[in-house]
């Protein structure tokens, strides 16, 4: 199984029946297609839709109906439309149960960097800074190491932050971490991954949960 598939299959388990959820642009958007039928969630799109449906057929395509990634979508039964200020009232006001976002770096203090790389063209943070401050639970999904093999799970983020101490759960291709007050905690190993492997590839300091879940 590819690392990305492992990350997504673990991430989809964070969605519980009845939740209102915001899935970030890119890899998190793919989770929408993996939600089990018995889990009924309302997906929020920060441009003004709660209740994202499937991608449209050719006949259903409507330029007035897109998601935050600017893709054409549909609205499911029970959906609602609203303006951008209200959309972020939902987010900032703590009415969204869960946000799943991509990451470039996560620190042991739960800091997240995911919006810019100095020296490269700045594209903008979009709604990420609002989401990390406002959603009730923040799950970050990313590869454990970068293409040079360096850990993306850091003592301190080197990239500009999206939010400070905002991450509740980090899911990588190797492991799952939680961020309680007491410090970063390894709670789960992905299938076939050893504790030694995680220790070697993680720059951050973490404790191993007494109830560490090992997936074989």
């Amino acid at each position: 199984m590819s690392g990305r598939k492992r990350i997504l299959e673990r991430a989809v388990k964070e969605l519980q029946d009845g939740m209102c959820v915001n899935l970030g642009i890119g890899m998190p958007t793919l989770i929408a297609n993996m939600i089990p039928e018995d889990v009924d969630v309302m997906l929020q799109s920060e441009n003004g839709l709660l209740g994202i449906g499937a991608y449209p057929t050719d006949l259903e395509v409507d330029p007035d109906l897109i998601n935050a990634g600017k893709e054409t979508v549909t609205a499911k039964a029970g959906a609602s439309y609203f303006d951008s200020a209200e959309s972020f009232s939902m987010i900032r006001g703590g009415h969204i149960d869960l946000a799943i976002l991509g990451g470039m770096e996560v620190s042991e203090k739960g800091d997240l960097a995911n919006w810019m790389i100095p020296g490269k063209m700045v594209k903008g943070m979009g709604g990420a800074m609002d989401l990390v401050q406002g959603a009730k639970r923040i799950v970050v999904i990313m590869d454990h190491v970068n293409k040079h093999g360096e850990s993306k799970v850091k003592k301190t983020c080197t990239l500009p932050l999206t939010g400070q101490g905002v991450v509740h759960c980090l899911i990588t291709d190797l492991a799952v971490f939680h961020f309680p007050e007491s410090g970063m905690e390894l709670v789960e190993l992905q299938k076939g991954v050893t504790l030694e492997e995680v220790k070697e590839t993680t720059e951050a300091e973490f404790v191993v949960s007494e109830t560490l879940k090992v997936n074989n």
Partner: protein
Amino acid sequence: MSKVLSSLDEVIHQIKDGSTIVVGGFGLCGIPEKLITSLRDKGVKDLTIVSNNCGVDDWGLGLLLENKQIKKMVASYVGENKLFEQQFLSGELEVELVPQGTLAERLRAGGAGIPAFYTATGVGTEVAKGKEHKEFDGKTYIMEKGIVGDFAFVKAWKADPFGNLVYRKTARNFNPVVATAGKMTIAEVEEMVGIGELNPDDIHTSGVYVQKVFVGEKYEKRIERLTTANA
């Protein structure tokens, strides 16, 4: 005095070099395409544009970039636009990146007569630099200021002659807050109905915010990322 315009030229000539214009839309969805092209044709320069995005290279606000009319852009995400990158890197274009929710609230506040507000968004990041920090109930917030533009460009679906507006689906996005945040708000719409034909319960933007209304024809409504189920 009628708010209904027979041509956009009647208002576009009032826009001078150096004006600040707040513009509705998200990506290319719900953008005031007729107002943007008219402004491009008018050619005024040194504009400050406040809008979530800056169009693409050959459409939307990208047309004003192409024509070098924008001095400063205030936006949350500008990654769809190569011209933007070129003008930013060459120093021709000034950019203020604002988190999307903060941008929406700054426009809402501006339109609602609230000069500033506190938000947790951006605390501990570059966005917070130089801004007042204040603690409420043990949590830190930063102060952000309201925005009011000299002009507001709005795209709606339907209007009546008083300027009451109804939007369609996610083409609503920033348009309702933008409508409140202009000293002079100009709305362009696809359809004009008679006074009394819109159900008052269904009106999204009250005509009190709208100074001028224009009915556009043949909307292009370009799609940025066509995604279908049959792919």
